[in-house]
């Protein structure tokens, strides 16, 4: 994996308000990096510094050997702002053509329109498009120069599932083309599903980064198992407690609940089955709650998303 961008100890302040501080991470070609954090945690601020919109940052953002502040990022970075940024009264094609002209990349206009499935709307005024297509247009304007690094600020907020998945597919395609993609989100599923690595952002700082699995395994805690049984289970409690991975068993007449060490849930459940069948107890309902990124977030940051 080639490292494209290295961010070290990034800090951003607006006037006297320190919004981002001590933020460090690295971006590699062909991966989707998710910045996961609640509203106001500083995600957008990080992206604006990364894309070159804000030169007034501390620490360093290095593209290879060049500091972002001094680099011409217009051909390297594509930035998709959180809010739409195109001429509402121009057609899709007019918008793309205008920005393509500014980059001397007019030949890509039609290609891009086609690639993004905007062809049908090429001559529709951008402001009249549905939300999903406006967002697509917003993304497409960042892709005019085929950038190596694509930064997307909450690209799927407020979209229906179909549109969201379309955008996910687009991002996966870009990943395959070898782009480094950074997206900010406060959707856990999005981060979990789409991102190769995620970073937890809170109060302007990256607290943790790693693959979602790693994070969940490391910081997600135990799996919670709760079941309704056919009869009173108190007789089975001792046997359940004896199962190696099981912790903190609770029983209230027909209801049995316990925690189970992460990764050993399957094994524990098969053992439990044996115990239950020995006691002639039938499972009426079972609810297994595996640890999620939310749990990770809760455990690490102290509050949920």
């Amino acid at each position, binding site marked *: 994996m080639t490292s494209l961008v290295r961010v070290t100890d990034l800090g951003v302040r607006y006037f006297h308000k320190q919004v981002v501080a001590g933020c460090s991470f690295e971006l590699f070609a062909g991966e989707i990096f998710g910045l996961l954090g609640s509203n106001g945690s500083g995600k957008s601020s990080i992206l604006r510094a990364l*894309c070159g919109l804000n030169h007034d940052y501390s620490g360093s953002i290095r593209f290879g050997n060049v500091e972002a502040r001094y680099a011409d990022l217009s051909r390297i*970075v594509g930035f998709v702002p959180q809010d739409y*940024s195109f001429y509402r009264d*121009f057609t899709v094609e007019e918008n793309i053509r205008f*920005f393509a*002209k*500014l*980059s001397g990349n007019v030949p890509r206009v039609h290609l891009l329109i086609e690639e993004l499935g905007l062809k049908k709307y090429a001559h529709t005024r951008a402001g009249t498009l549905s939300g999903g297509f406006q967002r697509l247009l917003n993304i497409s304007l960042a892709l005019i120069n085929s950038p190596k690094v694509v930064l997307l600020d909450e690209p799927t907020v407020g979209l229906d599932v179909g549109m969201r998945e379309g955008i996910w597919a687009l991002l996966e395609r870009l990943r395959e083309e070898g782009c480094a993609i950074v997206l900010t989100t406060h959707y856990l599923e999005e981060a979990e599903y789409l991102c190769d690595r995620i970073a937890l952002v809170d109060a302007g700082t990256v607290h943790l980064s790693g693959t979602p699995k790693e994070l969940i395994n490391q910081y997600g805690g135990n799996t919670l198992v709760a079941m309704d049984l056919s009869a009173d289970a108190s007789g089975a409690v001792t046997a359940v407690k004896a199962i190696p991975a099981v912790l903190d068993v609770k029983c209230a007449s027909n209801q049995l609940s316990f925690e189970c060490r992460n990764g050993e849930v399957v094994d524990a459940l098969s053992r439990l089955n044996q115990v239950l069948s020995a006691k002639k107890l039938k499972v009426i309902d079972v609810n297994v709650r595996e640890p999620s990124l939310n749990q990770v977030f809760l455990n690490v940051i102290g509050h949920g998303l």
Partner: protein
Amino acid sequence: MNWWTFFTNEFRFIRRQGRTALLILFVPIILMGTVGPAFSKFDFGSVPVGVYAGGSSLSPQLQQLENAELYIYPDEESLKSDVARGAVVVGIVYTPGDAQLTVYRDPLRSIIATEIALRVENTLTENVSAVIRDNLYSGWASIRSARRTLAERIEELPSARARIDTNLKALDSISADVNSLSVTDAQQNLEALASGLDDAGNYLQAFQSSINDYRSDVDSIALLEAELSETRYQISEARTNIVAVRAKISGYVTRVDARLVQVNSAIYQLDSALSTIATLRANPAFSGNTDLAQVQTTLYSARSELASARDELIGLKSDLQETDTQLATYNNLLAEKILGIDELNVELKQKRLTLSQKLDSLSTDVSNYYSKVTSAQAKVEPMRNSLNRAQSATSSVQSFTTNAKDSLNSLRGDLTSADTMMRSMQTDLDKLLAVTPSELIVPAVAPQDAIPDLTSFQIVFPALLGITALLTGLLLPLIMTLRQRSQGVEDRLLLTRASSASIFIGRFLGNWLVVFLQLAGVLIIGSFAFGISASSIPGGAIAIGAVAAAFVALGLFISRFVAKESSAVLVVLIIGIPMIFLSGVILPVEFLSGAARVIGSAMPLYHANLAFAGVFIRQNPLAYLVGPLIVLVEYAAIFGILSIAVWKRRIA
């Protein structure tokens, strides 16, 4: 060629703004349609004019005043307050025959008010000149005769002054004479004399009393004489006594001599007794020696006592003899004294008699003198009274002369001031005479516009065009820029390689073109519909181009500092309204105070107005407009450069 891209893009953007663009662009043109006809006729038809005729009927000339609605007022105060309130444009106070025409102008409509005031003045002075001329000529003749009379009177003045001077001199000599009378001296002398007389009287009286004293002294000399006679008698008696004493002394001497003889014989007896004793004793056979020795001693002491008694008797006898001699001498002396006393007494008597006589005659003299002094004293009082009367008489004469002199002097002063007055009257009259009556006739006021036959629309047009250019020139680029920013496009532009200069130039050209076209539209409507000269269109187009450039550049510059589209109109009003007031569009900049005038004359709108007025009203050739046009282009350049410089400025 990015700027071209930006230019076409901006142009397209403006086109796509639909209603907003239409509103900005066509409102001024619609305004033309409404304002234009309103201003098409420029006269004073039915302008309200207030008149106060001072209680008499309105002058016939005023009644004929053209284009005015006359309102007659009952008094000047209400007329004045109605002008101040704006109910009438001008207030005229004029009674036929008045020398003065008072005109109250509404300062807010002073141009119309001044025009009407001029017309009123013209109407009132029409046909009056001839009457004035006739009056002037007759007046001139009167002045000349007055001048002549005055000269005569002035010539008489010196002789009058000489007469006064003579009288003054006479008064002066009278005053001197009276002064030389010196009654006061006489009074003082009289007083000295009176006191001298008093002294003399006193002295004489004192003298008389001393004479009396002397007389008693002289009388006491007679007593002295009697005493001397007494003394003489006593001396005579003393002499008799002395003689008796001498006789006794002589008896005493005789008795002493007798005694001496007795003593001497006793002593002799004693001596012989003693010698016997001595012989006895010398006999050693004598047995009684010792007793004898005692007797001897006793005898010896008796003999010495007898011897001293004898010596005393001898001394007594010589003392007696000496005393007798002395007494004889005294007796002789006393005899001489008696002789002296007798002589003295005779002399004293004589002297006393002469003194007495002399004192008597002296006393008589003193009495005589005293009576004379008394009679002199009696004359002093009447003299004093007459002198007092003389004194009051002189002072009244003196005050009379002083008063007379004062009045004469003031008369003289009056004559002098009359002189200067008459002379100044003379020079005034000379001045009047130096002017010929024809020179005195005031020319009738005939105001003419330097550029004739302007319609009010033509006058308003440059201001209309300037304000339109200001509002749309600022508002269009401002709103277009803010709208693009709100659509997030500016952030995206920052991420491209497009330079600030190309962005500015493109945007500037796009907006400029639109504003230019709009102003051109206004101009063309003005030209076709409202009498703006078609020949001014080429010059007008150049002026419009420069004005649009200045305002569009300013608008783009302002857009860097305004965050929201909703505040755009407010910002344009905040910048535009002061500019409209200060730039001479509504009132000429000459109405402004010094600093404000300098500021106003620096504003782009001022130069826009200069350029437009120059092209459309004054029909100036382009050379005249080069100044304002250069300033406008400079403004465009300055704001352009500033906009490019602050392009990267972030607006939170």
